[in-house]
């Protein structure tokens, strides 16, 4: 088969949708500051508020419950920072809770922030997950108390794609009088998300995961929910996020969710078929593989697979040389040998965690990409295993 370029790393970031690109080009010359009272400013303000309406509508929120931020990470940091916010400086409701309940499989921007909060006296509980990456609901029931200020559980996992039972979780959290935040950066725009149906009080989403540009995200904050700005010193976003609005990014995000609304349903079905074909093909062609993540409750295009005796970064680079882009949770790629905390949390043996790759498909991928992957991957794994000290031992 002829060499081709296949981008299978859509959970890392996505290519810009041509429609979003068009919207960006149209707004590039709108230079007015949305806070200015003159016509230049009012024009920008109008575009920002239009986009806010689109984002709100896409997740079933009201426009004034949406605030724009610079990234998903900023959004998540912002929400975690409401814990123990008892000062009366701002007009917002405070949150006196000194305990945070989260999980062992969150994105680093939640994990690292939780560690930092723990250093500042917040008590943090990290919930376990099962083999498929689902949160232990009994542990959740036992962990959330009246002292729990916030429960933060990601809706869909970036590495293994598992989607949590959001409605059950939000019921448990609310029965115990706490608040529920979800990092929905990977879920929004891939599966239906409605804040009322899910029962969340806070939700984070990001532009570049849904064919929008980098550097723009949004946070949903339920009306009257406690809040505490992370970035202070400006009246923008009704005082909740200082800094002149990123008009271009905001307009692009508005257009991105609008396009998702019309394309998502068909694409979800198509991606699920492609993923099944890939899973089946890998299982047939390559022995000793482990699929990680829930078999059905999972992101449509995300497939995490571990190959015994093959190290993740080596797989990644051999695939890269064949034109295929995937990612690995095995962090040899990032300079330490710590395997992915997500894969480890599912209970997969450490040696398997080192050999896992994440294939994340998106709107531009086709069945031809799947076929190409299935032609290249068995050779790559065979080649690595032929020089593997960990695979020979098993034979």
């Amino acid at each position, binding site marked *: 088969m002829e060499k081709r370029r296949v981008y299978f790393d859509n959970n890392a970031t996505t290519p810009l949708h041509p429609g979003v690109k068009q919207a960006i080009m149209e707004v590039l010359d709108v230079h007015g500051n949305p806070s200015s009272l003159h016509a230049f400013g009012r024009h920008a303000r109008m575009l920002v508020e239009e986009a806010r309406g689109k984002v709100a509508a896409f997740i079933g929120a009201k426009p004034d419950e949406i605030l724009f931020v610079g990234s998903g990470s900023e959004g998540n940091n912002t929400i975690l920072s409401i814990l123990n916010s008892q000062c009366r400086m701002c007009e917002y409701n405070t949150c006196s809770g000194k305990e945070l309940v989260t999980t062992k499989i969150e994105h680093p921007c939640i994990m690292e922030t939780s560690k930092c909060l723990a250093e500042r006296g917040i008590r943090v509980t990290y919930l376990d997950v099962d083999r498929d990456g689902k949160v232990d609901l009994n542990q959740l029931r036992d962990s959330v108390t009246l002292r729990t200020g916030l429960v933060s559980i990601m809706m869909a996992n970036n590495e293994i794609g598992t989607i949590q039972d959001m409605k059950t979780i939000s019921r448990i959290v609310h029965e115990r009088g706490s608040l529920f935040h979800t990092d929905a950066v990977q879920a929004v725009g891939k599966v239906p998300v409605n804040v009322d149906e899910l029962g969340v009080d806070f939700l984070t989403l990001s532009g570049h995961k849904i064919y929008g540009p980098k550097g723009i995200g949004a946070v949903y904050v339920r009306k009257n929910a406690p809040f505490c700005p992370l970035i202070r010193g400006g009246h923008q976003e009704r005082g909740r996020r200082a800094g002149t609005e990123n008009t271009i990014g905001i307009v692009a995000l508005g257009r991105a969710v609008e396009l998702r609304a019309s394309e998502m349903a068909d694409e979800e079905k198509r991606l699920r078929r492609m993923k099944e074909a890939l899973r089946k093909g890998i299982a047939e062609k390559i022995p000793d593989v482990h699929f990680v993540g829930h078999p059905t409750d999972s992101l449509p295009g995300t497939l995490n697979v571990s190959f015994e005796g093959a*190290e993740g970064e*080596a797989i990644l*680079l051999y695939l890269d*040389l064949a034109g295929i882009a995937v990612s690995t949770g095995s962090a040899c790629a990032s300079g*330490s040998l710590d395997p992915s905390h997500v894969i480890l949390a599912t209970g997969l043996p*450490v040696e398997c965690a080192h050999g896992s790759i994440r294939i994340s498909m998106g709107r531009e991928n086709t069945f031809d990409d799947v076929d190409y992957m299935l032609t290249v991957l068995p050779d790559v794994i065979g080649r690595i295993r032929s*020089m593997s*000290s960990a*695979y*020979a031992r098993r034979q």
Partner: protein
Amino acid sequence: MDKVNWAYTDTVLEHFMHPKNILADEEAFQPDGRGITGNVKCGDQMIVAIKVDRDRGVITDCRWKTFGCASAIASTSVMSEMVKGMKLEDAFRLSPRDINKELGGLPEHKIHCSVLGDKALRAAINDYYERSGLHDRVEKEEARVVCTCMNITDHEIEDAVLEGARTYYELQEKTKVGTVCGECKDDVERLLEFYKNKHFCATNAAGPVNP
């Protein structure tokens, strides 16, 4: 996009694409010395097997296998070529820096992956000495306990530095060194500087490949 730089040198790429001297069949090879280092749980492992011309004290063949990343594969491949024809005592002194030089330099954060090969080689040479009754030539690398509370050795400090620890706090994160009584702090900080210098000193190490 084809103009995007490969993160490694051409030599690394060549050895990654076409690794030399893989130990395909251990029984057929019948090594005179065999060494193993690392383990799969830690994310990398290396087996090195050598044949030795006893009269000349020279390595005649070197084969290897690894559970490791691109850098481990390339550096061990190049090392297996370098040591053929080398005297045992010279091969024993081969350092990651020598291998790195031959490769044209690895990115700094990948250097820790390249030290497995020479470690396994030293183990293989020692194994050869043991097998041939040359017990007095066996050189053990004695580890010194630095932190008595957590039983952490200087070798563990060195490994942590190779894996990316650059500050005392990062060392503690990785090894738990000095987290109980803290008396070893000065000693650990000296070792930290020493190993940073040994492996990453800008004037000696082959610098990063790409600007």
